[in-house]
């Protein structure tokens, strides 16, 4: 079996590059404008002056094509679940999902409703932010958790 010269020479280079790109990815997580529930005013507050999301490089953009994080803010109904699946597939590859609010995690105050699903049944979720509505500090904590996740190179 020939000696993996490529691995030996390029190994450290690839490691450095991975570190640099992970650093750059964790500082520019662009969510898409997508609020699906009653926590949306709290999401606006997090983007507001007091709890400014943009300090962490989180810049909400208009379309899903350019976004890295699918921040599902609020409840997910069966009808909305189809659209979320569609959106998740349209996102470019290194993508993450953040469930903000008690409803996407466990259907929240409407747990026995006939038309609500939890987000895990629709898309794989990376970070859960509980709270109904979660305080802006909780959402920012979720963003920091996601940044640590990205740094580990998930």
């Amino acid at each position: 079996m020939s000696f993996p010269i490529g691995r030996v020479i390029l190994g450290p280079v690839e490691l450095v590059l991975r570190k640099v790109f992970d650093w750059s990815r964790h500082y520019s997580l662009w969510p898409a404008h997508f609020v699906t529930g009653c926590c949306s005013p709290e999401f606006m507050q997090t983007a507001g002056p007091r709890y400014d999301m943009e300090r962490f490089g989180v810049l909400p953009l208009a379309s899903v094509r350019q976004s890295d994080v699918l921040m599902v803010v609020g409840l997910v109904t069966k009808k909305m679940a189809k659209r979320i699946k569609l959106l998740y597939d349209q996102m470019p590859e290194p993508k993450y999902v953040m469930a903000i609010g008690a409803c996407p995690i466990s259907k929240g105050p409407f747990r026995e409703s006939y038309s609500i699903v939890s987000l895990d049944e629709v898309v794989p979720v990376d970070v859960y932010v509980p709270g109904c509505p979660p305080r802006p500090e909780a959402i920012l904590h979720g963003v920091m958790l996601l940044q640590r996740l990205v740094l580990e190179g998930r």
Partner: protein
Amino acid sequence: MVVSEAKEIMRISWGPQHPMSGQFRFILETDGENVYEIIPDFGFTHRGIEKILEYRTFVQGIVPFERLAMVDAANVGLAYVRAIEDAAGIEVPKRAQYIRTILCEISRINSHLYAIGLAAEAAGGYPAIFLWTTADRELFLDLAEMLTGARWSYAFFIPGGVRADIPEGFKERALKVLSYFEKRLIAYRDSWLENEIWLTRSRGVGRLSAEDAIKLGAAGPSLRGSGVELDMRKEEKYEAYEELNFKVAVQKEGDCQARFMVRFLEMIESTKIIRQALENLPPGPFKKPVPPKLPKGEGFARVETARGEMDVHVILDGSDKPYRVKVCAPSFRNLYVISKLPKLTKILVADVPVVIWSFDPWYLDADR
């Protein structure tokens, strides 16, 4: 897909994932610029709250009910609580009525700031005003948090009164916030309501005449923007609104600018109401004990939420859970008026966000 070959009308989906559509989907039939048809697609945030309420006792039911319009949780919660009190014939002590009025007006200012901020964003990426209103909302959220402990969903009103009394120090802080806010309102008026480009974008756009507004069933500021004076606080005289003097904001033109001017004037009125309510706050108990099982009966409450008049019809059957709760949501009617608007006036694709946000629909309120 092309609807009709003759005018090359194509059907654009103003989908749930769109910066200005919130949790809703409009289907626009347009030929690129003129909009011929706006078809609302309900049901994206339908939680079946009326069914859930039948499985929750009265006090438990307040939490999901407030999720109808979280931005304006106090007024919405008040509608449900007043309906139960109306059905069971419960009298609320005077002090509780004043405290309820204060929190309702704080929540109204909150909701109107949200509407004005998003309208500035809809008019054309005007981020400064959107963020200024978000900054001012933080002040009112702190006030609500000091009074009730929660920023948005207060669950502060219960049948028979209020959960807790006003903490001391609340009055001074509220007066400080209100005086600062009145200066900010002047800043909004100069920099935005009289902004030349905003006027070209909103003056005469989405005009709704008074008869159409009544016939189609518009609600709240959308109705008062067309010159129809109907405000539940004056009609029903509930809570402390009877003793407080305030004017009903009405505008004649009925276009987007008029609707926002109504919301703007209502914010000024709300600050006056809070000041008066804080001045002559009566002493006495703030809560009356209410038995869990309420007698059989039927109650109907009409509350002026920030988006319009919400009517709740509650039927009790003697158990501790309501038999049936029927909610007539203002945003449901406003969305219907939006869908009928292209037939009344000419709307361009670029106008659609401004027109939609001038009615300030709250889609969770419409989907229940």
